[in-house]
């Protein structure tokens, strides 16, 4: 589903974020991407959804060559990929349902179908009763669950999560991971970047470890 071939990414002249990274993530896998701060986890995720272009190397996502993808086809790629961030990136002045509705509108989903989908996803993440709340009134864990629901609005084949539990305590973090495992069980490929080693050990999933921009370990290779 996601393949990287000898990917290098350099910022400026000499800041090497990724060096010679090759990776093959199969359809339906749940993969942890670990490493300390500055290891290159976020850069790798951004390369996959074409937020960045590599300095060299090739990246295939669902059979598409991301590096050679014309600009006008980038939105189509991103519709296949859901993205979740540590800071959730929710619109704080809009309600939970409106945050999800924004995506439905952008994708041209008919109104009735959009409402059904929002209801279904909020039920999945256990927040249907809070649909009319603004995110400020939700806990960190609840906000992250809204972000997950929003990332699932376009039925992505791949879900990229960048430190989704970074701001959460252990109990809420476990809650979010349980939710992501449910999503994965329905067939969505998940790549989750985290520096939380305990969390990774508990889940017993494939783990790719990055250090200074290089892959230094891959339990599934």
């Amino acid at each position, binding site marked *: 589903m996601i393949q990287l071939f000898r990917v290098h990414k350099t910022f400026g002249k000499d800041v090497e974020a990724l060096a010679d990274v090759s990776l093959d993530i199969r359809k339906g896998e749940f993969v942890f991407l670990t490493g300390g701060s500055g290891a290159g986890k976020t850069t790798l995720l951004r390369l996959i*959804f074409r937020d960045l272009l590599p300095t060299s190397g090739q990246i295939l996502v669902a059979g598409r060559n991301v590096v050679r993808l014309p*600009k*006008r086809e980038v*939105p*189509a*790629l*991103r*519709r*296949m990929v*859901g*993205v979740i961030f540590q800071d959730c*990136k929710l*619109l704080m002045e809009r309600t939970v349902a409106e945050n999800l509705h*924004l*995506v439905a*509108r*952008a*994708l*041209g989903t*008919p*109104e009735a179908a959009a409402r059904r989908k929002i209801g279904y996803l909020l039920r999945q993440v256990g927040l249907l009763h809070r649909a009319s709340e603004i995110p400020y009134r939700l806990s960190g864990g609840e906000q992250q669950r809204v972000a997950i629901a*929003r990332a699932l*609005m*376009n039925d992505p084949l791949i879900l990229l999560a960048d430190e989704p539990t970074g701001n959460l305590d252990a109990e809420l973090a476990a809650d979010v991971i349980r939710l992501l495992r449910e999503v994965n069980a329905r067939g969505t490929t998940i790549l989750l970047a985290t520096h939380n080693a305990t969390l990774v050990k508990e889940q017993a999933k494939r783990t790719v470890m990055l250090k200074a921009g290089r892959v230094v370990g891959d339990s599934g290779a």
Partner: protein
Amino acid sequence: MRVTRLWNLLGDTLGNLRRGGWGGLAAVGAITVSSLILGCLWLLTVNLQAILSDWKAQFAVVVFLREDITATQRELLRRRVQAETAVAAVQYTSKEEALTLFKRDLRGQASLLEGLGENPLPASFQLRIREEHQTGPAMRVLGASLERLEGVEEVLYAQEWVDQIGRLVSVLQVAGWAVGIILGGAAVFIVANTIRLAVYARADEIEILRLVGASRAYIRAPFILEGLFQGLLGATLALLLLFAGYRFIAWRLGLAPVGLLALGAGRFLDPLQVSGLLAAGAVLGGMGSLLSVRRFLKA
């Protein structure tokens, strides 16, 4: 579904305009001022051109005849004048007719004519000149030629005035373009900045839209429409102010209105010109937003 999208787009655009606050007002104001100044110059040009064109249509050279000219000489002179290629028509006005016309022109001020005694006005030929010969050099050649003819006292023509008005119209047109470019540039700059602020204000939303795969057109359209609306609104306000000002001046000059957009001797911009000014405002606004979106919205 397209109707829904269009509705959403309009909703987003109106929301942006509402959130724009003072920045939005500044953009509309800039376009209003630019369009108003342009409109004033345009209106002045249109009216001067109309005057010029009226003058040209009625363009006449007056050949005053000597007191002692005989009927035979007069007829010979008429034929000679008629033979000039520049002359389209010749009309004779006798001394008596000249006095009658003069009295009619001075209606209400008849006292001026008291004590005139004998009719001092000369007989004359009024020549209508073909339009292609209504140029300064051609008129000077014709005037000199006519003055040399037997029985001619004096030749009068208003070519200098026509030339001066023509030059003024040209200057106004050049000034209009120059002012238009400068003020238009300023308006585009202000609109661009307003849209930039709108882009910054919605940065989070734009980022989310990019991430979920919204098309570039979907993300950009509300901002471009916002600029177009600001331009259209500014130009509409300018037109309203221009029309009010025009009516006020017409009222002060005592011109009677003829129809909604036409006044006695003066005239307002015609519907095509009004549409042109509105379109110019919209284009300025659209250009400003397009510049900003291209520069600050890397979606």
